[in-house]
């Protein structure tokens, strides 16, 4: 009981018609599948629950709901309140190549009607998926059209426009990571506190860019970009790096014969004539990527400083406000620690409102 209070639970529903790509996305992001492995996945039967630990104190209850009509019927009728209560985020997946666009929209409408009934304050992320099947020159137009149709439906059902976000995705490129990063960013409770600390760190290191990644999923939590680097032509570089890191993990796992989830590097550094770059562990659940100018001395200084900064960041993982208290106590008083943290569970959610 206390354990679940200590961690912030967020219920996330993943819904969409059968074959839209929900389970594939979920396996790539959270289960270390590579894009071509998803062919093995069969239709999801009823609901698949995953409890995913993210950033230490965030527990995502991901409900991957089977999209076949019979299951959807069941959610909307006899499981209605069970499924749609206390939802923080609904991720709805549309298959852009589907030939039943009208039926898809109807299904969507009835789903969000149920959502509005039980969780009217929830956020909806609409993913227009399988965009790789659309010819490049039509992508923007097709996406816009679909977004307009869906937005109209949402407004009809009572959701405000700021509650709904649209993303075009495909498992074959980094757009998948971009969309899910937004979902995660929305759910991470102390994102602005993290950003402040990172900004201070960036100034201290004189770094060009700092990117914070979640360890297992390689999703970007947040990033700080300073001065000159703003002109970097690759605006999607964060997702690209996510996808590069993920592939690297797989490659190392294959080589050492371990599971991709167990592979983690202590540090990756690259030094070239134009820039220097390193990624290292920042907290138990996050990695920090640092981009520095090409100067050996400041690069080594940066590495040392990040090591030292780890202590400061570690408390962001478990608790926010009473961080110092917990640290002082260390491992000696587990019972006391838990009680404090249970209090923090409530305190920090109100703290969050004031942060934002």
């Amino acid at each position, binding site marked *: 009981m206390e354990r679940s209070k200590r961690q912030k639970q967020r219920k996330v529903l993943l819904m969409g018609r059968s074959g839209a790509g929900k389970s594939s996305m979920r396996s790539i992001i959270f289960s270390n599948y590579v894009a071509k492995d998803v062919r093995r996945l069969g239709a999801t039967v009823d609901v698949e629950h995953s409890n995913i630990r993210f950033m230490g104190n965030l527990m995502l209850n991901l409900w991957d709901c089977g999209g076949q009509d019979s299951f959807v019927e069941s959610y909307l009728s006899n499981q209605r309140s069970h499924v749609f209560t206390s939802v923080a985020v609904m991720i709805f997946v549309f298959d852009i190549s589907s030939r039943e666009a009208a039926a898809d929209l109807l299904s969507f409408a009835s789903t969000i009607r149920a959502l509005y009934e039980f969780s009217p304050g929830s956020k909806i992320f609409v993913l227009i998926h399988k965009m790789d099947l659309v010819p490049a020159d039509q992508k923007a137009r097709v996406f816009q059209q679909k977004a307009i149709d869906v937005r109209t439906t949402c407004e009809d059902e009572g959701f405000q426009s700021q509650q709904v976000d649209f993303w075009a995705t495909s498992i074959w490129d980094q757009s998948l990571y971009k969309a899910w990063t937004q979902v995660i960013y929305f759910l991470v409770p102390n994102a602005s506190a993290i950003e402040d600390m990172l900004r201070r760190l960036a100034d201290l290191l004189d770094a060009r860019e700092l990117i914070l990644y979640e360890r297992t999923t390689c999703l970007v939590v947040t990033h700080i970009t300073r001065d000159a680097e703003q*002109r970097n032509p*690759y605006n999607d570089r964060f997702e690209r790096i996510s996808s590069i890191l993920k592939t690297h993990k797989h490659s190392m796992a294959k080589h050492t014969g371990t599971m991709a989830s167990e592979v983690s590097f202590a540090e990756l550094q690259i030094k070239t004539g134009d820039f220097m770059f390193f990624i290292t562990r920042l907290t138990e659940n996050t990695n920090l990527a640092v981009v520095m100018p090409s100067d050996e001395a400041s690069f080594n200084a940066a590495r040392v400083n990040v090591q030292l900064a780890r202590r400061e960041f570690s408390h962001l993982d478990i608790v926010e406000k009473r961080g110092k208290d917990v640290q002082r106590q260390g491992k000696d008083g587990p019972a006391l620690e838990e009680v404090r943290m249970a209090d923090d569970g409530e305190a920090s959610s109100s703290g969050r409102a004031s942060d934002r």
Partner: protein
Amino acid sequence: MVSRKLDGFTPASQLTLMRYLQGLHEAEPPSSPNSQARYHTGRLPNGRHAGSKPRLMLMGQKRSGKSSISSVVFHKMPPSETLYLETTTAIQSRSLHSFMDFQVAELPGHLDYFNPEFDQASIFGDIGALIWVIDAQDEYLDAINQLNNTIIYLSTTYPAINIEIFVHKVDGLSEDYKNDTFRDIIQRVQDELSDAGYENPPVSFYQTSIYNHTIFEAISKVIQKLIPQLPALESLLNSLCSSCRIEKAFLFDIPSKIYVATDTSPTDTSSYEVCSDYIDVIVDLEEIYGWDRSVENGYSMEERDETGNGDSESLVTMEKKGHNYLYLKEINRYLALICLMGEDSPAEKKVLIDYNVGVFQEAIEKIFPRNDR
């Protein structure tokens, strides 16, 4: 007379053929018709550019996969796009400008080269290795016959050419079937050749597929046989490995991801794969952050002067003890040294590694002098 013969070929091939034909009369004739060919370095008694730049020839039946191999390995085409390649109709000769300047010629599969119309000297005269591609998923008996005829023909005229047989498209086959087919092909070829009286032909067999790393490994081994400096490179890598306690070192050609040399400890596929994937990581990250900053006034000019050295270096350390870590150092624009290190901590050995790699780099400069690149 020369120009009439060349009409059937594309302009690029024409130039090449012209060069061959013009140079042939300057070439040294073979010392004796039955001279023992020196297979190791592929030095051709007849070639004008003997020993300096590897030249490969891809042959095989039509639709066996020759153009796909050439595109994937030398022109960085993603394997899935090779479905859209059209049938090759004329002799294609492509150059790859890398540290070694490969030339890859591809003969369309449906032509008969023993027809007197074809100028065999111009086609076969200058190549170091002949790669014969057999489609393992198709009927291969006919291919084997053609192959054997070619080998027997070449054994008399151009005995120094290495014959490399790629048993291709093995990704779609089950493990057992793959091995059976492989063994069957080897058996048939060797039987036929020994029946024809050709003992110890310079023939090697490889299982390949463009959908994984096997094709790169096979081409790496083919190319290595054509590099005369290979023994020097190997001994350099060996001494590097023993002095720094490196488990495995590769000298990679970055654009094509073929490895030019490795140390003499046993090589397994997974080491090659992890190094090859690692190059991808580095190249991608370099692309993202190595963008042209010269638009900023004054900033980049100073920076560049300070650092000078444009070659990159990279290191990955793993969290758990007992897992290897990877070290990469660009030797020049095309070559990179990649080492799979043992279990010792990098911090202690970094100075040692830096010094030894520096020595290695100087040695490479001497082996491949600048004008040859």
